[in-house]
């Protein structure tokens, strides 16, 4: 049995004007907004809770529950912050979404802000990608023009202002508290938790931070109901997800499918392996999650099943590598990325990535010893679980995971270099 | 058996020794005949790098190690105008009080730059207490050929690390000129 694709967010991406207000409204855009206003703020939160929507940014935290943490009637302003700082190696789903269908995000922002009683929302978009920034800015402007943003939206009495903020090129700003610091005009470095953003986030006020895909999924849920959304996916991982398949496949791209689809199916949808070489390894959701091999192609892509397989669904953006890839080089590139992006706040991540790259570069140049593999495992262990935020944990992931399946290849590289010398 | 009187027996020892080679060392007349052992702990010396810059960085670790509190050091910062050692710091004041020193050599072990070593010179007697406090000028190693006396700049393009790893082999004309001035 093959799992069918379910185009929802991607349904009209082929339209020439999919990114415009008219294009969006032609297919019923902004109709969820009226339903949301009718349902009331608590009603919206309930629907989202019932739908089982989980955060699409990587951690998979239930969205409705997150909204429920925001204290009500506390006299403080509330904020919605959309995390669209998509910079994970391999992840490319929010950016196409914002390019092709920015209004789904804007509508989601309005509904979500309404639910959490926020009158200010911020969309924080990765600075290196000007195109989605332009598209979302245009969409926000159009929404203002159409009375969908601003004061007393559609006579509901609800006011909302949306600011589209361009990041300044730091992976760490995808970490939610670093994003808040960056948004406040400081250096983007993660904050100490507690207090959690739901209690004291942006400008020390209750703040909800959601991934762009999560927010963009909300209008459809409001429109079609929680049961509709729950009918897709599995019991614990319900719903539809954008799977951005990249790497050695014939047709890399975004495939919108229910959770629980398998990698084998996705590769089939993507036209099979490029150059028809066999698959060597793949990563379910960005470089921060441990790799899997061909043995794991039939595991359903859900939060739970991935965890059981020793990895994570992450952003749900699988990278596929065939046998032409050197796993050693892949690991070096990833860790170099983390070294480059380490914010410097905590010691394990700052110094540990520096050291790992130092050893891996040596390995690349053929000057490593077999004992360096143990050292790298040790360094990874010294970073993992001891760094300030998840960036350190992510940096500690690739090497031990690669070693689990490809120890011989590392040994071979080291020995071969030794022989050459 | 007839006993030899005690007194004659005693003279026998004297008599036998008259034919033995004397072991007395004729110090100081013949001291060149009796050099100290190579590892003898004698007077200290403050060494130089091959271009004449001083090795001492004024870190005071020798003074710290000294069990007799015989060493006094004051550090100072090298400037571009006046450089005595490679790197940031040099020893401005360096004194060893030989009335206190017990020649144990712990200072030598403590020295991180091998600036302080011990010579075999052991003639450390004098007639005035003040004279036995040796100053930096008394302790500095003599200038060997190829060295220019500090202060002068470092060899161009070399770091203090290069000095430490022995990459400097002698004073450059620029350094000699500076030292001359």
């Amino acid at each position, binding site marked *: 049995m093959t799992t069918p694709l379910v185009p929802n967010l991607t349904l009209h991406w082929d339209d020439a004007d999919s990114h415009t207000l008219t294009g969006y409204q032609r297919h019923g855009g902004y109709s969820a907004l009226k339903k949301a206003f009718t349902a009331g703020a608590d009603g919206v939160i309930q629907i989202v809770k019932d739908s089982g929507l989980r955060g699409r940014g990587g951690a998979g935290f239930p969205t409705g529950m997150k909204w429920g943490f925001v204290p009500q009637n506390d006299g403080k302003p509330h904020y919605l912050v959309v995390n669209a700082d998509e910079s994970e190696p391999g992840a490319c789903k929010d950016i196409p979404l914002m390019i092709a269908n920015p209004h789904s995000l804007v509508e989601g922002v309005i509904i979500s802000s309404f639910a959490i009683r926020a009158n200010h929302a911020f969309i924080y978009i990765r600075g290196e990608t000007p195109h989605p920034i332009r598209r979302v800015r245009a969409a926000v402007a159009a929404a203002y023009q159409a009375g969908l943003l601003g004061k007393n939206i559609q006579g509901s009495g609800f006011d909302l202002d949306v600011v589209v903020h361009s990041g300044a090129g730091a992976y760490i700003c995808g970490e939610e508290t670093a994003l808040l610091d960056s948004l406040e005009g400081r250096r983007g470095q993660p904050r100490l938790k507690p207090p959690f953003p739901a209690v004291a986030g942006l400008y020390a006020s209750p703040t909800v931070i959601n991934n762009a895909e999560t927010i963009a999924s909300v209008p459809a849920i409001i429109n079609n109901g929680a049961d509709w959304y729950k009918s897709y996916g599995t019991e614990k991982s319900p719903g539809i997800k954008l799977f951005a398949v990249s790497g050695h496949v014939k047709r890399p791209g975004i495939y919108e499918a229910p959770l629980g689809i398998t990698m084998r199916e996705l590769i089939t949808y993507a036209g099979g392996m490029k150059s028809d070489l066999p698959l060597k390894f793949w990563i379910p959701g960005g470089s921060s999650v441990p790799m899997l091999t061909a043995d794991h192609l039939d595991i359903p892509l859900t939060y739970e099943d991935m965890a059981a397989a020793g990895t994570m669904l992450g952003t749900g953006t699988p990278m596929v590598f065939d046998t032409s890839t050197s796993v050693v080089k892949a690991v070096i590139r990833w860790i170099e990325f983390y070294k480059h992006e380490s914010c410097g706040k905590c*010691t394990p991540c700052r110094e540990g990535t520096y*050291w790992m790259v130092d050893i891996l570069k040596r390995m690349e140049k053929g000057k490593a010893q077999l004992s360096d593999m143990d050292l790298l495992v040790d360094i990874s262990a*010294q970073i993992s679980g001891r760094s300030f935020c998840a960036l350190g944990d992510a940096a500690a992931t690739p090497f031990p995971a690669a070693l689990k399946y490809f120890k011989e290849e590392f040994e071979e590289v080291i020995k071969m270099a030794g022989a050459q010398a | 058996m007839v006993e030899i009187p005690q007194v004659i027996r005693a003279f026998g020892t004297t008599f036998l020794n008259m034919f033995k080679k004397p072991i007395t060392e004729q110090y100081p007349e013949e001291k060149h005949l009796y050099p100290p052992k190579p590892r003898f702990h004698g007077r200290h010396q403050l060494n130089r790098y091959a271009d004449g810059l001083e090795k001492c960085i004024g870190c005071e670790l020798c003074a710290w190690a000294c069990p007799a509190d015989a060493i006094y050091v004051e550090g100072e910062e090298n400037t571009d105008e006046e450089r005595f050692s490679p790197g940031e710091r040099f020893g401005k004041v360096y004194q060893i009080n030989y009335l206190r020193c017990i020649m144990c050599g712990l200072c030598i072990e403590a020295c991180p730059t091998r600036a302080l070593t011990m010579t075999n010179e052991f003639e450390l007697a004098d007639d005035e207490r003040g004279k036995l406090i040796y100053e930096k000028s008394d302790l500095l190693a003599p200038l060997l050929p190829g060295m220019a006396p500090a202060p002068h700049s470092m060899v161009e393009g070399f770091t203090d690390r290069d000095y430490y790893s022995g990459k400097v082999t002698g004073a450059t004309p620029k350094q000699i000129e500076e030292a001359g001035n």
Partner: protein
Amino acid sequence: MTILANSNQPKSNDNDLITAVIDGIAVRVPKGTLAIRAAEMLGIEIPRFCDHPALSPVAACRMCLVEIEGMPKPQPSCAITLTEGMQVKTQNSSQVASSAQEGVMEFLLLNHPLDCPTCDKGGECPLQNQAMSNGRADSRFEGTKRNFQKAININAQVLLDRERCVSCARCTRFADEIAGDPSLELLERGAKQQVGVADDQPFESYYSGNTVQICPVGALTSAAYRFRARPFDLVSSESVCEHCASGCSLRTDSRRGKVLRRLAGDDSEVNEEWNCDKGRFAFRHLMQDRITTPLVREHGELRPASWPEAIRYAAEGLRNQRAAVLAGGRLTLEDAYAYSRFARVALGTNNVDFRNRTASSEEQDFLTNHVAGTGLGVTYQDLEDAQVVVVIGFEPEEESPIIMLRLRKAVRNKTLKVIAIDSANSLGFKKLNADLRLTKPGNESAAISELIKDLQDQNSIILVGERLASSHGAFSATVAVAEKVGARIGWVPRRAGERAAVDAGLLPNLLPAGRKVFEPRDREVVASAWGVSVEHIPTKPGLTQLEIISSAVQGEIDAIVTAGVDINDVANHAAFAAALNKTFVVSLENRASSVIEFADVVLPVGAITERAGTFVDWEGRLRTFDAVMQESLALTDARVLHLIAIELGHTFKDDAKVTSLRSSYSSLGAVSKPGTMNLVAASTTKTGLVLAGWHHLLDNGSLQAGEPHLAATARAVVAKVSSETAQANGLISGNRVIVRSKLGAITLPLEISEVAPETIWLPLNSEGSSVAMQLQIDIGAEVSVSDGGAI
């Protein structure tokens, strides 16, 4: 066990205590206590770098990781607040914790240069120590360490070596949270992360030296101490700062009789653990220009003399003369007490005044009734606990920098509002977010009277500065308002010895401990404490400093005993010089001063490091200290006066040693309630352009001599006016302005700023702006201004 609440810990009562277990030992602590603090109380040392009790936690260095039962990962104990029943396992009982700490230490040493022998921190370095206690024996790193240019200046007196930095962010947090001068920041990211300042903006802070002290490695070092010594050859002594009335506890490190550095002492009730750069770096005056032997004047020239000769010479010059004592505001309590006694008994006069500055009879009345002998009054903690603090004629950052830190702490906690009545805005007022009421000098009393509506039903404190003496009616208005709203008053003088001088009775109407000259009962008590008969205490009213000077000029005073007085501090310095010229002058000094050229006898006394004593800070708190140089043979002022008194035929109950004077003073007790001040009405409102100003913390003060690095961090010397005043007087911003009095002129660059109307603000004693010497007027006096052309 229970942790006692101090200023850094949440206040609590028994109901708020929770019990947690650390390494198997149960500990009862207030809610909100951090695990690392509780461990400290148990004597369990958890290694740390970024943690500092006075700074907000960041949990950046990860050195203090501990295992907490129920948590999957090791947690930073510096950021974990204990909860009821929490089980914490430190490196002492947990393999997880100890291996985490070892790992972090290995990481920290990765990029740390091996230059401990050249590093100033070597020997007292938390990184060295904790590498020994919690690190691996060897390094597994074989790569290249990151390189930065070696020491760079972040300001003139603090150097930064970025290679040594462990990015703990203590300095940046100090700058932001404590000092409020946040130009020090972490820059770049990853292993390239570094502390830095903007290219054109050095770390301008009066508190920058504290960053050197809290740096857990040798990344921040001070220019003054650079490569000077090692901790093992320093003798550390507790001491008290002599620069201002804040009363900071200090640690003075000396070697072979020379002070090499000073650090802030740890006193939670006073300076917490901070001090200002002046207190930290200005100590060369202790060794510079010292007078080493007594000098006597012969044929118009001073020549060295023996002590017996000089004492005899002084005594002969003073015997049966109409004498006066001018003892400036830098004396210890014991010395001030001795001067007070010497004047009364040995010289038979009440002509004694310590105020070598703007002074008024209204101020004297205020000091007599509200300050003298009152003991500990408003405290630092009171400032922190108050709802409103009003500062009048007092700029906290420039004139008592530790008060500024304490006020700022409360302001940051959003528990305190500061109201300022002053002539101009300042960085300090801005950092306190002060409600500034710009007031033309002389018009303060009206502004003060309006405070009633702000202070009604508030826990409020009014701090008045010595500058208020120049404003007629201001002290009276303050007392009236305070009585009406129940506010407490704190008097904050600028110099360290002024409060002690008031307490010791160095005023014409006062005897020690607030006893009054004109009260027969008070005279008896004092006479018995001194061991003299009551007739020996004169009843004839004495003269103030101004009166002494004018009397001397008119030939009505024959001899003057001076100590710690600089004639250039007062506007009438020409008359002062004439007075000294005309009289027999006995000068007790430790270094060359402006008085010496007029002195007939100079008697050298010990510097503050060479003797014990007590300063009384603005709170009225006794700040007792011991000699730093224990082996010094220098005499105290009190001993020298004692010798002269004996020569004059007077003896006292005690031997004038520091300890005996101290107990003699304390036997007098304290004043139980304030006296009644004679309230005066303000004079008519001032018209015309008047002079305002205050002393910059770092200026031409004589105790800052010989400190080039410190002087380079002084604030810009500019004249300030409001834009309206500039317009009205044809002044142009950025041009020079010429400020004229009848006797002189000052030319300075002009800055348009927030200044009271019809007022021009000048720093009082900075380079190129010595108001007393150049203009010879006090603040509040009328001046004329004109544009001085482009710079």
